[in-house]
């Protein structure tokens, strides 16, 4: 995903002849990186301009991507690539800034929460300093503000606020032309990301209502309830955007269902790979890694990436959750189940993502 997409031109043909690689300009990267890391061609570099502390466990990284970066729409995410102890890691984060900040100042922000035990988020918090350069993918995702603008209800939990933050900031620049309500669930008010900023936005814009709910504030945990939804005027004609932990998403889904809100009005995005319930009875099977001349048996719902790694192979990989496609490879035969959709593939040749594909019977791969 971080590799830039190239179309074939005579110049690229020549590049391949001369440098034996598809990205001829990246041949010079090792030298360019020494002179100025922002000149690297293999991926889009972005310099950390500033780091802002939001809450005890959340920081906002202000990035200046190389000018060739193609921009984004509010609500989209990017993969970032960082090197930790010699190993490249990729992770997906939502952009939290308005699109205007990019257009006017060439800046974007990522608001990142420290995950307990997380290798990358902790490294970003503790080691990444301003001035450093990280790799940035083009933005992707379809968690987008409806056009033309319609009334919206946002339901966010924890760090799920980040794509919504970008949407609210972007809408604020253009002025709210329809009622927008945000229900934001946080552990306690200290953990509200950009809480003050959101309240200020609400004070400035009559059509925006912000309600920040501390779930652990009282003696009883306080979750999303039917009455929260009852307070929303004209709920039926609103577009609803959900982003947050699985529990909140599931609860919101149920409550909205009960209110008879149609599914196609609901947009959601995830921070961890959603997993459909797979019947692990018929999963697993003999996996043949043809190019490595290796056969291994797998049982249960282990994805092919983990099976390959357990067998001592080191296929290329990125996000490990089905987003970045860096682990895509050829399946030459056999059936795999996609852990995100629960869908089984056909039995023939196919390009599959190793990190979310689970063998169903014997599978043969070209790695």
């Amino acid at each position, binding site marked *: 995903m971080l590799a830039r997409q190239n179309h074939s031109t005579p110049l690229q043909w020549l590049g*391949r002849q001369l440098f034996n*690689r598809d990205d001829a300009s990246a041949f010079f990267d*090792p030298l360019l990186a020494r002179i100025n890391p922002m000149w690297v061609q*293999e991926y889009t570099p972005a310099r950390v301009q500033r780091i802002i502390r939001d809450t005890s466990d959340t920081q906002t990284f202000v990035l200046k991507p190389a000018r060739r970066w193609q921009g984004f729409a509010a609500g989209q995410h990017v993969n970032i690539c960082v090197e930790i*102890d*010699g*190993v490249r*890691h990729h992770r997906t984060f939502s952009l939290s800034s308005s699109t205007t900040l990019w257009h006017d100042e060439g800046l974007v922000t990522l608001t990142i929460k420290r995950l307990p035990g997380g290798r990358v988020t902790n490294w970003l918090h503790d080691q990444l300093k301003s001035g450093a350069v990280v790799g940035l993918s083009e933005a992707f995702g379809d968690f987008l503000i409806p056009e033309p603008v319609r009334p919206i209800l946002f339901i966010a939990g924890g760090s799920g606020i980040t794509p919504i933050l970008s949407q609210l900031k972007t809408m604020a620049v253009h002025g709210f032309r329809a009622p927008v309500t945000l229900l934001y669930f946080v552990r306690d008010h200290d953990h509200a990301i950009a809480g003050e900023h959101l309240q200020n936005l609400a004070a400035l814009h009559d059509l925006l209502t912000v309600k920040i709910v501390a779930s652990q504030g009282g003696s009883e945990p306080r979750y999303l309830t039917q009455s929260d939804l009852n307070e929303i005027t004209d709920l039926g004609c609103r577009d609803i955007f959900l982003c947050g932990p699985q529990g909140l998403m599931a609860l919101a889904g149920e409550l909205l269902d009960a209110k008879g809100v149609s599914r196609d009005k609901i947009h959601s995005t995830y921070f961890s790979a959603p997993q459909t319930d797979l019947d692990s009875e018929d999963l697993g099977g003999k996996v043949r890694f043809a190019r490595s001349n290796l056969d291994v048996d797998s049982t249960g719902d282990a994805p092919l990436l983990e099976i390959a790694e357990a067998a001592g192979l080191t296929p*290329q990989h990125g996000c490990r959750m089905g987003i970045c496609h*860096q682990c895509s490879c050829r399946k030459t035969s056999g059936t795999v189940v996609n852990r995100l959709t629960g869908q089984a593939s056909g039995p023939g040749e196919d390009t599959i993502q190793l990190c979310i594909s689970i063998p169903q019977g014997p599978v043969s791969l070209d790695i």
Partner: protein
Amino acid sequence: MKQMTEAQLTELEQDLNAIRNDVLADLGERDARYIRRVVRLHRTLEVGGRVLMPFGFIPPVFVAATVALGLSKIIENMEIGHNVMHGQYDWMNDPSLHSQTYEWDTACSSDSWRRTHNYEHHTYTNIIGKDRDYGYAVLRLSDDEPWRPRHSLQFINYILLSTFFQWGVGLHELETERLHRREITLRSKLPFLKEFFRKGGRQAFKDYVFFPLLTFPVAPIVLAGNIGANLIRNLWSSTVIFCGHFTQDAETFTEEECWGDGKNESKGHWYLRQLSGSSNFTGGRWVHLLSGHLSFQMEHHVFPDLPAHRYPEISDRVREVCAKHGIHYNTGSFARQYGTVLKRIAAFSLPDRLRARLPALDVA
């Protein structure tokens, strides 16, 4: 090969695994920095060589440009390409240093190399009839192959093979000897030949057409320099590689030894075979870099996927393991090891009876 009991082989396996695990646990920043530095050196030499070459009408510049380009090809093939394709840096998760996608600067396509070298040679090291790297189907290097009159000229074949080494390696997968014996058909090799012509064509186009034409008035000089650079790389790589398995004390094996009586070769036995069939040579830091650390061929053959720059620092431990198990740690100066290679090539060009009468040529 030294006879060892299953228990001894298991102990050998454990001793070597311990070294391997120590290195694996320690991989990180230092290794990434090392390979990136070598890649930078390669790029600098290649860019420098190509830029200087058109000014090669000044003799010292011609020499400098040719040597720089030659060295760049040596470093790219030996320390970067060969080692990256063994998966030594896969753990870095860097697509430009990944074994399955790396394409190197030589006529042999990386896919073909992964099949013939990483798989065939490293699995069947020095097993006569299985390891086609042993003599490259051109040379007779042991008694296992009966003498034929054509072997008497094999020194000429050796010189030709060294001179055109990249093309020899590129065509290795064609298995001409099996085509000759009609065990396989040319038709079955068409996909390979297509791949060979594409990759080989690309290499020839770059060095012998594109860069000379680009510098038109001085095209002959650039052409000569590029030929020189390829020649330097060919002679050096072939020499280094010949020192790996064809020295005096590097042993050969039979299929029977490894898989006879329906037995399956154990990992310990595989380790023993790798150690007994390979040989090192000594030298300075530059010799190791330019040989892609194949100067530590024994370490490379037991740990082909550990970053090669780690071989010098584990060589003492490997030597101790060899001493403990009574395995010959085959090393010596470059000149000495290469001398025994030449002697082997010469000795086996003679019929066995004649060779027996010339004690100077006794290598077996």
